[in-house]
């Protein structure tokens, strides 16, 4: 699996309250959620995000509440992959469980750079800067979930 896209850059501790504020949690409709994605942190996100973009953030991305609405909103908004220095653990498992590819890696990128993330080789290439970084491959169990397209698909297929 290989993902190529433009970078949208954020810092440390992006919490689920700014990814999707609780005032919008009276729905679980992905489209309605995506319409407010990142609103309290970056009101321009929704208007400038393009299908296939990659979010690159600092440490502890997705900290805070267990709301699966957060990775759902990100995925629905067109983001193909999230790369962060580290993830909060519930966000990490939620993203895997709904099939949003995420990578734990410290990369040197700026907003708008073009990245290629190769899940088979575990290498991220910054096409704009000509640099690259390695990341640890998923354990086979998690790869099976991602390849099935999420936890419930994996459960259905009897992969677990």
């Amino acid at each position, binding site marked *: 699996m290989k993902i190529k896209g433009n970078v949208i850059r954020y810092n440390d*501790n992006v*919490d689920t*309250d*700014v990814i999707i*504020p*609780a*005032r919008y*949690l*009276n*729905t*679980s409709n992905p489209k309605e959620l995506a319409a407010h994605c990142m609103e*309290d*942190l970056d009101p321009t996100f929704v208007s400038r995000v393009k299908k296939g973009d990659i979010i690159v953030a600092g*440490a*502890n991305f997705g*900290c*805070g*509440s*267990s*709301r*699966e*609405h957060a990775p*759902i909103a990100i995925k629905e908004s067109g983001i193909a992959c999230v790369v962060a220095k*580290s993830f*909060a*653990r*519930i966000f990490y*498992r*939620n993203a895997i*469980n*709904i099939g949003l590819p995420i990578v734990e890696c410290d990369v040197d990128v700026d907003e708008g750079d073009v990245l290629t993330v190769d899940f088979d080789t575990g290498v991220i290439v910054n096409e704009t800067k000509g640099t690259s970084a390695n990341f640890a491959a998923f*354990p*086979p*169990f*998690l790869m099976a979930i991602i390849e099935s397209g*999420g*936890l*419930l698909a994996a*459960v*259905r297929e*009897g992969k*677990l």
Partner: protein
Amino acid sequence: MNTNMTADKNKKTLLSSDASPPRPMTMTQKIIAAHAGKDYVSPGEIVMANVDLVLGNDITSPVAITEFDKTGARGVFDGEKIALVMDHFTPNKDIKAAEQCKCVRTFAKKHGIVNYFDVGEMGVEHALIPERGLVTSGDLVIGADSHTCTYGALGAFSTGIGSTDMAAAMATGEVWLKVPGALRFNLTGKLGRYVTGKDLILHIIGMIGVDGALYKSMEFTGAGVHTLSVSDRLCIANMAIEAGAKNGIFPVDDKTIEYIKEHGGDEPRIYEADPDAEYEKTYEIDLTEVRQTVAFPHLPENTRTFDEIGDIPIDQVVIGSCTNGRLEDLIIAAEVMRGHHVAPGVRVIIIPATQKIYLDAMEMGLLRQFIEAGCVVSTPTCGPCLGGYMGILAEGERCVATTNRNFVGRMGHPKSEVYLASPAVAAASAVAGKLAPAI
């Protein structure tokens, strides 16, 4: 799906580490091993574990139900081991919230889920579940709510998961878990007057940061543990997630057992950490030295003690939530406020976390005292804690809250501010009209 999925009763390691020899385990690791049908587990290993309780609320359950229905499962794994609590937006704040609760209510009825709690019976989930005796020592509990880690106070392994995990667990009774490493917090001494569990956990988060325990267990040990009330332990374990932890856990002692008996919980199953269990780090904390602590916007790690706090005028105070909405919290707040009136221009909202707490507080005369002092008392709800309703902040407003998160926009406008504090500090601040210590 359903039963055939759980056919593999001989739980196996999903990420093999079979080569490593048996090793001492932490309390958390022992509970996970027991629920995975294994003699021992090591950090990093991924296991499938049986769950004793699966929890969901009015926000996370609808997502789980949609996923559950998609699987084609015939039924839930056990109608008595699922708890659904309508607490975030209840009594329903708008039509969409009402539809969400209706979805959960219908599901509970269809699948014979006995522990469904709606208006009239509900309370803030993490206050309600222990109060109802639905969790006991040694249990493995998962909940589609990040503060599910609260029950570590009772010596259970409990952790927050997402809605898809909840859906899978409702169908199979199992969850995949990566075995966590651990940090140890060795407590000695005793907390001073008006210094509470909230001050201790804020102090710890200030010390290690909001990702200081990322993916790990926070295990509390030492003689100081036994000086803490169960209410304080619930508050401390509740905020383990604010340090990024997978869970926070306390050893089981007489106070734990008494609490569980009093609330009709199942017989405790006691697990103790091996004496030579490995901790990535041990922090020594003398409770005597902990001071009243406040977390400034916009992260729980931005803690200050009153010697570092200047004049911070406030607009609102909220006393409630799964962190500090218990009877003990209301008692201490009332004590601090006794004989005083709320400062002019400050709105004070008191939210007992459950119906039982509400009733007890009423019988003790606390509610009358709050109302006469100029506070409002609300029916149990999460409400303002997550910026849902019942006390939303306008641009530029400041609130002292006994809740657990002060992220940007958490209680309303993105430019409002939340200061996290204990009920004693919140009450003193309500009277002073600015951030103030309880004396």
